[in-house]
């Protein structure tokens, strides 16, 4: 039932003379919710940009298995890329209305008669009353919900979320977590999310990985990493002893 989606081998990402990421091997399956945890500066966002095919690795290979083909950052077509959507750590919205921001990705794909779909999505993220608002008037939680909505409306095969609940209040955290679960349940979307919060990883993900200084310390089922970590550094991180 589970099929291979991402396959990373000897992936390195180097900026200037600094190796920011170095992953000997990592596989992610179709349909799973996968959490990436680790202190800031560990290279989590960098890994997500690679998975989004926004950057090619400096060396090694990152392959994405689509239905019948295998693509990499270099040979992916626009159609291939459009099967992946990513929500950034600090979302930047367009200086247009909330409604137009949510419709943006659909319009890129030439879908103009999407009014009902947009209204339904506004409703789903509780932004209907603010549909005509301008981004600079929104709160952090609202911005985050709009940026989640503009990605989810595209019904991507893969949804990449970079700290979707960082710095948010409890209400917004649980709303966004519910949206993520709902998206997974509705469409079987593969979701890869970065979080600082080990409890959130447990609540949402089936598998997770700990990243430290650009290296993959441990990968496995969420349960295992939380209850029976194999690596002492995982134990330290999970118990909160690792200072960051």
């Amino acid at each position, binding site marked *: 039932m589970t099929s291979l989606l991402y396959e990373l081998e000897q992936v390195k990402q180097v900026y200037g003379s600094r190796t920011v990421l170095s992953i000997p091997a990592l596989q992610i399956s179709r349909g799973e919710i996968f959490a990436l945890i680790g202190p800031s500066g560990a290279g989590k966002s960098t890994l997500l940009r690679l998975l*989004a095919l926004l950057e090619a690795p400096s060396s090694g290979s990152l392959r994405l298995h689509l239905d019948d083909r295998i693509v990499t950052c270099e040979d992916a077509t*626009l159609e291939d890329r459009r099967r992946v959507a*990513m929500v950034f750590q600090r979302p930047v919205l*367009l*200086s247009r209305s909330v409604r137009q921001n949510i419709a943006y990705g659909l319009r*890129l794909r030439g879908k103009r008669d999407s009014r009902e779909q947009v209204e339904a999505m506004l409703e789903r993220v509780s932004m209907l009353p603010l549909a005509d608002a*301008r981004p600079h008037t929104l709160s952090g939680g609202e911005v985050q919900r709009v940026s989640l909505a503009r990605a989810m409306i595209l019904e991507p095969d893969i949804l990449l979320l970079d700290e979707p609940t960082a710095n948010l209040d409890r209400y917004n955290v649980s709303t966004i977590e519910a949206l993520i679960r709902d998206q997974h349940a509705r469409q079987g979307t593969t979701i890869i999310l970065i979080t600082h919060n080990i409890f959130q990883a447990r609540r949402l993900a089936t598998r997770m990985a700990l990243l430290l200084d650009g290296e993959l310390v441990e990968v496995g089922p969420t349960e295992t990493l939380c209850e029976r970590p194999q690596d002492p550094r995982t134990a330290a991180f999970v118990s909160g002893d690792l200072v960051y």
Partner: protein
Amino acid sequence: MALAMIIGIPLGIWLALRHFPGRRLLTALIYTGMGLPPVVVGLFVFLMLSRSGPFGDLGWLFTMNAMIVAQTIIATPLIIGVTMSSVQSVDPSLRMQLRALGASRWQASWAQLYEARFGVLVGLVIGFGSIISEVGAVMLVGGNIEGRTRVLTTAIVLETRKGSFDFALALGIILLLIAFVMNMAVVAIQARTGSDSQ
């Protein structure tokens, strides 16, 4: 003016988005170009187009064409410079975020330009303003020939010299009105698009 726009806007975007060797030098040249004394441009175009100059065979000196060439040289750097800086002032992360929503390179560039729309508009008005208020270069290369290369500004100079201050003043008011209408249009467009970037 249209010519300066056609050249200036794409170049401004290109300069803002691309990194290549020599970009800094080019940027510095553009900024120098923004401050070019129009009379110097006029002199340059005059020399180029004069009978013994390299483009003398075109016979453009003292024609509208010569004036268009000079005005384009004056306005283009202004438009490039303002377009470039307003496109650059758009959040650099936006482009990648739009790409992550499935935008092609062109679509992302277009959205970036659209985000900078107010700045670009201001650039166009500045460019237009510099053109309609320009005297020196136009006088030099156009020759201020009645019915052919006489424009508002050069007419004002002439009428003032002749002592017809009333007429000169009236022309001046017309010039001011044109500038005012242009700027009002910008303000109106700004209000309609609800630009909140600045």
